[in-house]
């Protein structure tokens, strides 16, 4: 780790001010990505702004949405009675991120701010049409994810909470990288009041994306068969030592069909 200054502000405004004043300052949420990256000397922040003292935790039901504080760890989302009853697919997603230790530290805000192309939460946010609330504004998920590790957030902009509309039914199906256990390909299918939304993470070479062709087909007929012949463009797929683009494209179809089957199986 390189030397850095550690700050733990008491308010969002104070945190934003520190970040605004120093382009090399970085916010620390749960640290499940950031700290390993620092330990490997791949990040050299001047100031680490710890967000743990800002009180941005908690989960509540707000009309037809679940609202989760940015600093809420995955484990609390997985445990939440509100989430489990209203939006079980989200509890399932949270309960299958990393391991128990990671789930006690890692946060939804950190996951969305980092926008790792293999992260789980971006798929849920995009599939439900979530709203990312920050210290400045509200950003629709559609406008928020701008590519691998890239979001609409400004340097001094902090996610405060995330509002995820509750789907009528949803399922998250993931196929993990055998080493990292991050999704190699994962698909979140959500039946929203306005139609079915399909978000894919882990696979795309530009991060999380919506699979519109599948969405349209599923709106016509919500069944695995309806999307069986849909090809996911290989040129939009990521490729690495674990999975080639064609394999990932194939897995997108498999995971999507399984997610749809799981929803139908639940009746």
């Amino acid at each position, binding site marked *: 780790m390189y030397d850095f200054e550690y700050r733990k502000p008491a308010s969002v405004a104070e945190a934003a001010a520190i970040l605004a004043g120093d382009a090399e300052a970085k916010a620390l949420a749960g640290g499940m990505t950031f700290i390993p990256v620092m330990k490997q000397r791949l990040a050299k922040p001047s100031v680490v702004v710890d967000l743990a003292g800002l009180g941005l935790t908690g989960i509540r039901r707000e009309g037809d949405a679940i609202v989760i504080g940015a600093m809420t760890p995955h484990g609390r989302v997985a445990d939440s009675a509100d989430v489990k009853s209203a939006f079980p697919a989200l509890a399932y997603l949270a309960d299958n991120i990393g391991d128990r230790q990671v789930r006690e530290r890692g946060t939804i805000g950190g996951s969305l701010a980092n926008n790792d192309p293999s992260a789980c939460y971006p798929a849920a946010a995009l599939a439900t049409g979530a709203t990312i609330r920050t210290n400045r504004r509200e950003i629709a998920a559609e406008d928020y994810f701008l590519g691998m590790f890239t979001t609409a957030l400004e340097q001094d902009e902090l996610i405060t909470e995330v509002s995820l509309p509750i789907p009528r039914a949803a399922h998250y199906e993931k196929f993990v990288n055998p080493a990292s*256990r991050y999704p190699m390909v994962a698909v979140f299918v959500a039946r929203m009041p306005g139609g079915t939304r399909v978000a894919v993470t882990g696979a795309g070479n530009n991060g999380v994306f919506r699979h519109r062709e599948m969405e349209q087909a599923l709106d016509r007929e919500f069944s695995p068969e309806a999307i069986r012949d849909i090809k996911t463009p290989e040129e939009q797929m990521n490729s690495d030592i674990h999975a080639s683009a064609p394999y990932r494209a194939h897995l997108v179809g498999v995971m999507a069909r399984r997610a749809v089957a799981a929803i139908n199986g639940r009746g």
Partner: protein
Amino acid sequence: MGHEGIGASVKRREDYRFLSGRGRYTDDINRPRQTHAAFRRSDVAHGRIRGIGTEAAKAMPGVIAIFTGADFAAEAIGGLPCGWQVHSKDGSPMAEPAHPVLAQGKLRFVGDAVAMVIAETREQARDAAEAIELDIEALPAVADLRAAMAEGAPLVHDDVPGNLCFDWHIGDAAAVDAAFSGAHRVAKIDLVNNRLVPNAMEPRAAIGEFDRASGDYTLYTTSQNPHVIRLLMGAFVLHIPEHKLRVVAPDVGGGFGSKIFHYAEEAAVTWASAKVNRPVKWTCERGEAFITDAHGRDHVSHAELALAEDGRFLALRVKTAANMGAYLSTFAPSVPTYLSATLLAGVYTTPAIYAEVRAYFTNTVPVDAYRGAGRPEATFLLERLVDVAARELGMDRIAIRRRNFIPADAYPYQTPVALQYDSGNHEATLARGMEIAGWAGFEARRAEAKARGRLRGIGISTYLEACGIAPSKVAGALGARAGLYEVANIRVHPTGSVTVFTGTHSHGQSHETTFAQLVSEQLGVPVDQVEVVHGDTARIPFGMGTYGSRSLAVGGSAMVKAMDKIISKGKKIAAHLMEASAEDIEFADGKFTVAGTDKSKAFAEIALTAYVPHNYPIEELEPGLEETAFYDPKNFTFPGGCHICEVEIDPETGLVAIIGFTAVDDIGRVINPMVVEGQVQGGIAQGIGQALLEQAVYDEAGQFLSGSLMDYAMPHADDLPDIVVGTESTLCTHNPLGVKGVGEVGAIGSPPAVINAVVDALRDYGVTHVDMPATPQKIWRIIQAGAPRMAAE
């Protein structure tokens, strides 16, 4: 004593310390006035050093000294020695290029150490190491065996033509040729034994300390064999005589072979501690471990088995290329040769075998022994080839094995590849394994899985391996530059408690428990009265350490020999006290008894008499009760057994799930069944890791692509099934305990069982072999390629 002696599942005495965070590992040790070392390492696979700029780095905060290869060259410091010399077919010795502590002239792999920075703190040392300016002329790299063998390949070492380290062979080529010419059928296979990264839980660490007052050096290091390190580093690298060099290997968190070898960092910190006149500490990080710990396996083989019409094996021919990496690690040349090709008979009566092994240098991390060392490679090749042969003949996989088993009454059995097996009973382990695994009911399970859309397969491996390399004379004739005996010192204290000093080293093997049980059994002393000491050259007379499943078979036998001397002396003391003849004294259950009488003396009483010799045969017998024994085994030991794996493949994703795993291993006498089960399960976890998950990947430029746990897939708990472990005990005939060794059987027997199961699951897809690791992508591709053929049929 039966409840805690041989055969009892005594709980591990070391667990309290380990589970409560009270272990004392090398990194837990901090010496007064300690400094910290960091190494600047090559980020190119192959390059010529044009310049190393250290001025700016030297001026950085906390920096005490920076050393490069030139500093070692200036003092004529030796290179890291290789402990095993192999000769080529033509009698010439292997190419043995210099292996400097810090690179000189060229950089030969990503991770090769260029410079060492010593600073007040670890982070300061790292900051300065990064600031060193390297001027490197990049050279084309040789990233794998294929590249190393290619016509006109770049040379890793300018003085090693063709990158060829040696071209070795064993067996009778003419007899094999003759057998092939008369064969009914020939089964053939091309296979890769995938390159692995050892990934012990504890990364390596080393602290060098020089005492100017005494002139003594101490090295604390993560080693499986501190005396071997003292010999190699002291005698060959730094020229420090043994009496001035102490090597301490305290608690060590896993080795799997990777901590046998003498590494550059050990020599560097020891040497530098005298230069800066302060202790120098280095602790490896995981990422650094990936590119500096010796890797394992990395063989490419072609094999052919000549078959008679009835399924008998007539002859075996094997051609292997072995990757040595950039330099010869300590025991690297022995792995593909004497530890592998000598195992090619397996459990079968194949009358003629011929194997050729060519070893090559590449611009990769050095490759050396990893759990099983050569024996997993031979076993994988043979057990895969037997399955191919069964298919070739349309024969049942069990039937072809039974047809060729060495019968239990044929022991001792001389193989055509040097080894003479002393004992074994392959039918016994096979029958028990098949029964536990429910082999007979498999087809019904396969049909049931098919109905669920899953491809189910079952695979078997009936293997044999060789542990405890021995005797020293034979090992020496085969190229070992060391003896392979073991040493034990048994110190009986005046009140009858016992300290055992062993030259073996425990880094996960539970020696502190097992050896205490052994002593308890032999001397009749309770386990809690026995202390086991290992890992310090200042406390232990000598020893060769722990690897090759040798600790109990060789080290335990040395203890038995030392205890025999203790008992013999005790009988003389007892005879004196009870006014009897020593020949009439019997020792059992901790008591010396005059035969045929009820007169007896307890062990503790004899011990006290030995140290308080008031009434003592002082004219004939020295006081005290302490004995040392060196034990040189008469032969290897030969554990073997039967591993059966059952898998299900998800044909849509290619994911292989292990449904069941049964291991019935014949390891001779069992001291602690619980420890044995743990060793077998751990070995199988690593074998499953090799078979399904693990793969060290270099790109064509020699960059290491799987250099972290994000990309190198270690087995997770949920990758593993419940492993059913059974043991059989056909005793070893030539050591006093009848023990064979258990540390490696799991890693040796399991990979072919897994892959045989995978191939069986894919039996309808026209596949005869799947290389390890059987990743989902690989399986998916096979299914994709096989599907049209299925449709056409």
